[in-house]
């Protein structure tokens, strides 16, 4: 370490930390001492590609399987994530719709769960900023309030998308995405390979290819292989950060602490620090996703230019959310859903249905005897979500009546969505939440707990753009 004491200590280098630091560095013109502790290492995209091609990479030693990083008590449920520089920007699939305004007001509008302490309007300008930083491709007309063009043009519709867009207008749109529709700074255009975790074309936004320039800033000292497990607190303030590096216990002191690990590890750090808030670790989960295969008569679903070609909002908003969950439709362009009947090989559309879920106390994260390894307990899907699946099955044939549908095939729910949410929810006070609207811990007032862990409710939309906007919002309104 260069110093004994830092102005800012940041844990993790994923979306949450990176967007927070981007805004923080913009706002603070004076020289600061900033320490970033990253548990993993830089594992470049080019090296990850080598492994996908079956070639040798010296960096493969840095690949940490998520299964070994946590104790997952429910093997039916999976929680894939990537550790190392850039965090889950390395493995995400680049879907970036905004949340709907109603997602922030679930209690007021539908009498369900709680309202967020921030609104869509509060986040609006930060959504634009995050979309600009990620060079998002998207359409002009969206179901959520948004003016003007996205940084990049939308992806091409398929023949099926065109019919649905004609019928449903801005309730069926080209998906806003960080998979570039045109080559842009540091990235190539998407080729619809549909294997986005490690993009073969380097078309997807990652922290590594972002050109955001945060970690190159000379005020920042980035330390790899430093695994934070707790904070030393006294008098409602976090004084020091405890971590392990090279097998040794280490400690460093800081003025402000930013927890930007994923929700599982942010929770683990807080619980290991003696956090007694009754919501810490509770209400953890993610959306439920399931696939519907749509067999078409005499209609090829061709021409799409990315993996998720479109988003459908026909089952998203409405008074039904008093009774059952919103559902976001992702129209996939996946090569493996071809047909074998002669002449019908490409007469297939596939919808991934994303259902919001509720933060339930029965789903929680806790600590273990190993301070570095948290335990994940996911036990229950809400009736709110399960009821929405049944409604979808009743309603979908009518929604698709504009298409020549032969039959629908509903596949089993996926074991994961890659959207780890909750555990450090946001609210008005410690009586209803862990952090406030700026994601500052209600008890430890110099600790920020960033990321999707802070979401008050889950929404049906993909979380990354919103968590990036929240990081920008927090840094802008806190310094």
């Amino acid at each position, binding site marked *: 370490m260069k110093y004994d004491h830092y102005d800012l200590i940041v844990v993790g280098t994923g979306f949450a930390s990176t967007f927070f630091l981007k805004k923080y560095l913009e706002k603070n013109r004076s020289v600061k001492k900033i320490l970033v502790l990253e548990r993993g290492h830089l594992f470049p995209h080019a090296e990850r*590609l080598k492994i*996908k*091609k*079956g070639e040798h990479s010296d960096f493969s030693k840095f690949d940490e399987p998520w299964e070994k990083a946590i104790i997952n008590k429910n093997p039916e449920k999976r929680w894939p994530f990537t550790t190392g520089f850039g965090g889950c920007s390395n493995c995400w699939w680049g879907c970036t719709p905004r949340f709907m305004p109603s997602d922030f007001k679930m209690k007021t509008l539908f009498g369900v769960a709680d309202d967020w302490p921030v609104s869509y309007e509060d986040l609006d300008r930060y959504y634009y900023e995050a979309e600009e930083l990620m060079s998002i491709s998207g*359409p*002009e*007309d969206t179901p959520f309030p948004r003016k003007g063009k996205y940084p990049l*043009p*939308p*992806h*091409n*519709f*398929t023949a099926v998308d*065109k019919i649905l867009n004609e019928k449903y207008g801005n309730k069926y749109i*080209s998906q806003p995405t960080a998979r570039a529709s045109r080559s842009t700074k540091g990235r190539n255009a998407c*080729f*619809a*390979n*549909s*294997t986005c975790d*490690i993009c*073969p074309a380097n078309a997807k936004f990652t922290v590594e290819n972002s050109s955001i320039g945060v970690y190159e800033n000379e005020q920042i000292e980035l330390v790899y292989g430093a695994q934070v497990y707790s904070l030393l607190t006294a008098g409602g303030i976090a004084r020091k950060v405890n971590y392990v590096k090279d097998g040794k216990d280490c400690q460093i002191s800081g003025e402000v602490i930013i927890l930007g690990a994923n929700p599982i590890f942010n929770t683990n750090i807080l619980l290991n620090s003696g956090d007694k808030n009754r919501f810490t670790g509770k209400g953890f989960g993610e959306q439920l996703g399931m696939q519907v295969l749509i067999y078409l008569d005499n209609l*090829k*679903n*061709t*021409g*799409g*230019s990315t993996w998720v070609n479109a988003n459908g909002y026909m089952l998203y908003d409405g008074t039904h959310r008093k009774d059952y969950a919103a559902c976001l439709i992702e129209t996939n*362009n*996946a*090569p*493996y859903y*071809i047909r*074998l009947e*002669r*002449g019908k*090989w*490409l007469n297939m559309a596939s919808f991934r249905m994303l259902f919001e879920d509720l933060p339930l106390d029965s789903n929680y994260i806790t600590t273990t005897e190993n301070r570095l390894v948290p335990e994940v307990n996911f036990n229950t899907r809400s009736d709110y979500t399960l009821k929405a699946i049944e409604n979808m099955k009743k309603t979908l044939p009518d929604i698709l009546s504009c298409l020549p549908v032969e039959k629908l095939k509903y596949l089993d729910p996926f074991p994961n969505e890659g959207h780890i949410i909750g555990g450090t929810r946001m609210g008005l006070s410690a009586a209803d939440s862990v952090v406030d609207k700026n994601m500052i811990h209600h008890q430890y007032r110099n600790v920020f707990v960033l990321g999707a862990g802070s979401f008050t409710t889950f929404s049906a939309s993909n979380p990354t753009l919103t968590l990036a906007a929240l990081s920008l919002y927090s840094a802008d309104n806190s310094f």
Partner: protein
Amino acid sequence: MKRRQFITLAGIGTGLLILPPILYTTSPSLRKYASKLILDELYYLKINPKEVEQYVEDYFNASGNNMMVNLKWKSYYFLRLNAEKSNQILELIKYFLLSSDFFIHKTDESKPVSYLGLYNPYKSPIPNPYSFVLYPSETPNT
């Protein structure tokens, strides 16, 4: 499901006791049966059997192989299962088409189908069969 087929499938599930053991010891190898299944299903395409055999070799080498797998595929053929009735056969045949130039030729049945190597977006030249690479859009989105 026909009763005879049901009994045979039940045999597979309980240790492969019902099919005559002679079938397993005297028949050609599993890979030959997998190749036959593909050629039977895609009878209307012009496919060189040697290329199907190469595909099957690559497919099973990539996905692992053992005695139980051999018996399973042999059984599929004797039971006259096809892609409609078995997900594994469906996957085998789908993956063959994805690994060939069939979609590059825009599903033109009149053209010979060549195997180009196992479908792999990181290694092979075969694009997503649904994609704009093969079917460019005439009217851009707004």
